[in-house]
């Protein structure tokens, strides 16, 4: 991706965000003159930026919006909800284009349609106002159809029009087609009757015909021709590039090349002349007059020389040139897939400075080692150098630690990056289901590792959507129980030691624990006995259980539970946990506890079947040695008793499909782990040590491998596989 585009994407995203925030402020009626000014500036700057990367469609769309906003700024227009919607829609579209650019590295070539829609929104409304005429079809469906049928005939500039005369048109002495004949430079006309009109039921004096036409003339000329005509006129301005790929033009030109390439001398000149003529006509028809003239000149020389080579080359170059005659596949190469967000990071310069300093100190340390090595080489007794070596090693240790911390700081992003997308979404979701929601985000400046921040959006969206959809009551119900009509949803973040806590709190109806018990029992999620032993709080956590997700009836009754297992999965993937708290009638609070960083993980190692494996230390409760005779067979598995608790036991080698070591020790070495609130024992051959590692998640084919959390390199170069304890027990 070129540097300009990179910079453009960065700035444009910020401007889109800023614009969105300003618009939301305005909608709340909070923003004053300053907000309007800021909003206008955002649109204006975006337009300028679009110009720099030569993204004409985006410029056009923004220009239309900017014009309208300037009226707001001059106080000749009010801020209406429609205006806010249109502007937000415009920014949405721009965000989509930016996504596309992020993958392709260049402005999308097929953006004109979308730009037209935006321009229509802003300009189209003004047009309605000054003619006072209703619009035929606000969705412009006819235009799409017209374009599909006649895409190749669409001129680079001009208008497409759709006219539906009133039924009594003929009685008023009107002749709609005669009016159309007065429009200059009509390129194509299409007529349509209502579906299935037959000759015997047509009334000759009632007009039911619809007229669609394309002309190179200006909008004003078309309007003048239809001035006062009784009926509904809809005009769409065509812009350079607004035309679909000229597929048939392309195939025509290719056919000429084939013709010219044909071997055999018979009728050669005739073929040459014919193919040349067709090419010229085609180009003229498309309004590519320069190109046509070029071909005409070439054709003459070719006819004189009797050689078609230069002509073929010229036509071919037109087919190849991106500006000349584009082919459909060319235009559609843009990959739709959404690239991972924020490939470019903005970093505080002071953090970079810290790294530069560290590099300096590391270099000094490195030189010190060189010096020591030289001393040894020169015959100095290594034992004398031991103190020196130790000192340097301690120094290196400190520097590496600092380096690690500094790098982490760079990877850290404020949660604002995710949070700021929600006000807009909450507004949309709540409007779509007719609820009123007040959304508050707190602690946006709380920081977390970029990986975590970036993967938080989806789970949060899920939770918030749930809170709006199921958690909060409709205004009438709220009023009846004495709550404010507008439900409140708070998205809150804070740092707690090594964790980042993100909470979504609503003041809705809360979770009906009784219902969850019933449903869990109905579905055999857990045996009845354990269900009745569980506390209300434990029961509530069942909303995250996979079996709980799909039922709509649970949703309706409990107010919660649609696919919350996917939230749990997403949060656990980044090393977090999720829990819920709720008070009937007062609301619920879903809490995500996330690691501040995903980079350094404390692990404990253990050996099984001659291999070293790691366990994330936070899942390890303790280690124990249990005499083999105390291991009891329970069903198909085994279990042991530790301080009066029965804990299920698995053998690590066995569960990984490795051969069990033969040497049976008197005592079994067991790592007691805890995951998802359950204790479990893992029998290993030997217990290892604790260490800090940079865990590399599995990727590629191994990405979905179960039971493995990631890998890291050991000091001796071996690969340490760190196991996912929870998946081992599942």
């Amino acid at each position, binding site marked *: 991706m070129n540097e300009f585009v990179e910079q453009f994407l960065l700035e444009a995203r910020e401007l889109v965000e800023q614009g969105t925030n300003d618009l939301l402020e305005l909608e709340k009626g909070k923003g004053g003159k300053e907000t309007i000014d800021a909003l206008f500036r955002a649109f204006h700057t975006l337009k300028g930026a679009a110009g720099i990367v030569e993204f004409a469609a985006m410029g056009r769309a923004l220009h239309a919006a900017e014009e309208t906003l300037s009226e707001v700024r001059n106080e000749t227009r009010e801020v209406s909800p429609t205006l806010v919607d249109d502007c937000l829609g415009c920014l949405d579209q721009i965000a989509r284009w930016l996504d596309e650019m992020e993958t392709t590295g260049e402005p999308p070539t097929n953006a004109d349609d979308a730009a037209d829609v935006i321009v229509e929104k802003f300009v189209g409304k003004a047009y309605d106002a000054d003619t006072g005429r209703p619009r035929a079809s606000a969705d412009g469906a006819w235009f799409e159809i017209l374009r599909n049928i006649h895409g190749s005939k669409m001129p680079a500039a001009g208008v497409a029009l759709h006219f539906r005369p*009133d039924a009594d048109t003929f009685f008023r002495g009107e002749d709609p087609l005669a009016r159309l004949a007065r429009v200059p430079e009509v390129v194509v006309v299409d007529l349509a009757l209502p579906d299935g009109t037959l*000759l015997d039921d047509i009334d000759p004096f*009632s007009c039911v*015909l619809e007229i669609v036409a394309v002309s190179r003339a200006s909008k004003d000329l078309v309007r003048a021709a239809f001035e006062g005509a009784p009926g509904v006129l809809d005009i769409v301005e065509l812009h350079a590039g607004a035309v679909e790929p000229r597929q048939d033009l392309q195939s025509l030109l290719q056919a000429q090349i084939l013709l010219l390439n044909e071997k055999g001398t018979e009728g050669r000149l005739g073929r040459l002349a014919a193919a040349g003529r067709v090419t010229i006509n085609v180009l003229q028809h498309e309004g590519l007059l320069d190109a046509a003239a070029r071909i005409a000149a070439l054709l003459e020389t070719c006819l004189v020389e009797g050689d078609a080579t230069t002509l073929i080359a010229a036509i071919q170059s037109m087919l190849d040139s991106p500006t000349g005659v584009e082919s459909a596949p060319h235009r559609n190469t843009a990959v739709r897939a959404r690239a991972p967000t924020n490939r470019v990071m903005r970093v505080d310069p002071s953090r970079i400075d810290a790294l530069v300093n560290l590099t300096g100190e590391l270099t000094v340390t490195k030189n010190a080692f060189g010096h020591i090595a030289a001393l040894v080489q020169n015959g100095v007794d290594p034992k004398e150098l031991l103190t020196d070596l130790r000192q340097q090693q301690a120094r290196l240790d400190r520097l590496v630690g600092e380096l690690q911390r500094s790098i982490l700081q760079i990877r850290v992003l404020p949660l604002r990056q995710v949070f700021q997308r929600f006000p807009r979404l909450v507004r949309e979701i709540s409007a779509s289901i007719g609820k009123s929601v007040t959304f508050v985000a707190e602690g946006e400046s709380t920081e977390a590792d970029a990986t975590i921040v970036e993967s938080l959006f989806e789970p949060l969206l899920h939770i918030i959507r749930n809170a709006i959809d199921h958690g909060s009551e409709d205004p009438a119900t709220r009023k009846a129980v004495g709550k404010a009509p507008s439900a409140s949803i708070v998205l809150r973040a804070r740092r707690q030691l090594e964790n980042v806590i993100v909470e979504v709190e609503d003041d809705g109806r809360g979770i009906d624990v009784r219902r969850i018990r019933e449903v869990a029992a109905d579905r055999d999620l857990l045996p009845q006995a354990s269900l009745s032993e569980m506390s209300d709080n434990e029961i509530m956590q069942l909303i995250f259980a996979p079996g709980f997700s799909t039922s709509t009836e649970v949703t309706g009754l409990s107010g919660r539970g649609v696919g919350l297992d996917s939230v749990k999965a997403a949060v656990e993937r980044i090393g977090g946990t999720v829990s819920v708290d709720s008070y009937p009638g007062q609301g619920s609070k879903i809490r995500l506890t996330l690691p501040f960083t995903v980079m350094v993980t404390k692990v404990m190692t253990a050996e099984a079947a001659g291999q070293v494996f790691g366990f994330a230390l936070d899942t390890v409760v303790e280690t124990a040695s249990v005499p083999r005779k105390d291991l009891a067979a329970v069903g198909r598995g085994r279990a042991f008793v530790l301080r009066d608790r029965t804990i299920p036991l698995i053998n690590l080698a066995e569960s990984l499909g490795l051969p069990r070591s033969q040497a049976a020790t008197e005592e079994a070495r067991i790592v007691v782990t805890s995951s998802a609130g359950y204790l479990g024992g893992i029998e290993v051959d030997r217990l290892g040590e604790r260490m800090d590692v940079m865990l590399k998640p599995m990727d590629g084919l191994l990405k979905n491998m179960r039971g493995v959390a990631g890998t890291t390199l050991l000091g001796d170069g071996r690969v340490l596989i760190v196991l996912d304890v929870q998946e081992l027990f599942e």
Partner: protein
Amino acid sequence: MTIKQGDIGEVLLIGDCSVEDADVLIQRLLENPSVAVDWTKCTNAHTAIIQVLMASGRLPEGVPKNPFLKAMVGPALRRGREANSAFPGRPRDAKQPNNAITITKGPAG
């Protein structure tokens, strides 16, 4: 009278065909569902005439004198006959204009 009968029974559109001729044209076309229409001598045709031609699905023969009819309306009628390239009409009942005026047709002739 600008709607006439030709030597072999075909319907001829001659000169300036006005809205009044539309009714006559319908009658002629209904009387003889296979009759051909020739507009070689047509200098102008009112929208009402074109509407009838469109509904009849018949393609007028010959090349009319009027350049707009020749270059634009002719091809539009031709495309109207071909379902795949025709501009689709609106659903019939859904969007009938509210202010439609119904006129009862008189008997033929």
